């Protein structure tokens, strides 16, 4: 029965990544935790992954605060191009 719970390191790290976004299923989390019992490397990968997630979230927060606007010069050029096309 437990054989079906066995996953490779590739699968484990994929689930671990999915879990960073809170989107791993209960079964996936169960498989991942069982994998950790045997694999210390993946456990270590997961711990570091959590650290990275914190960094990514911090970066995401600062990126979201930026609103990008098209430079006026480019808008003027685009207006010209559009008017040419209309003729």
């Amino acid at each position, binding site marked *: 029965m437990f054989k079906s719970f*066995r*996953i*490779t*390191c*590739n699968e*484990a*790290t*994929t689930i671990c*990544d*999915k879990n*960073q*976004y809170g*989107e791993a299923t209960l079964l996936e989390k169960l498989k991942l935790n069982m*994998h950790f019992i*045997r*694999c*210390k*490397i*993946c456990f*270590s*990968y997961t711990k*570091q*992954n959590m*650290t*990275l997630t*914190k*960094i*990514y979230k*911090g*970066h*995401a927060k*600062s*990126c*979201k605060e930026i*609103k*990008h*606007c*098209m430079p006026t010069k*480019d*808008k003027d050029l*685009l*207006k010209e*191009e*559009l008017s040419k*096309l*209309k003729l």
Partner: protein
Amino acid sequence: MIFILQMTQEKVVLNTNKWIDNYADYMYNYAIVRVNDSDLAKDLVQDTFFAGLKSAKNFQGKSTERTWLVSILKRKIIDHYRKINSKKGKAEVRMNFYEDGENEGNWLEERVPQSWNNQSEKSIENQELKTQLESCIDALPEKYAMVFRMKTIQEFETEEICKELDITASNLWVIIHRARTQLRKCMEDNWFNS
């Protein structure tokens, strides 16, 4: 130029003269958060306006002008994504982290996570860290970087990304996994243990 479309009883007006003033910033912002390249974002917006102008007669007024233009822009982004997805070379490079086989613990020795010297939690607000992270994201294959940015930086829903880029959820998670493993390695080499 104003297109007036006669529908059953009502008239739908498409005012193309005001497009740039009304929508250029919104569409530019929409494009740049997805492609992270200002020149490419400008090109995509320009192509969208051109395509919109050409098909203005098809506008039925079922949605707002902006929604209609954004749907064209989305199409352009998907086309771009498909183009980079089909490119050979950089996008094809895959870092192998594991030996072949189905057993656990089969990490390649050089890929095994190293212990990190630099304690990142203290440095999350550090500008240098952000610069390094951006440079690591930029080093990813374009399609990985695009999906990673949409999911992790812009925090879009999985379903939304799949719909926009026309990929399956399992496809998305494989891309996210590859992006994150490559990023981890890059950050390990250039930040944590540099």
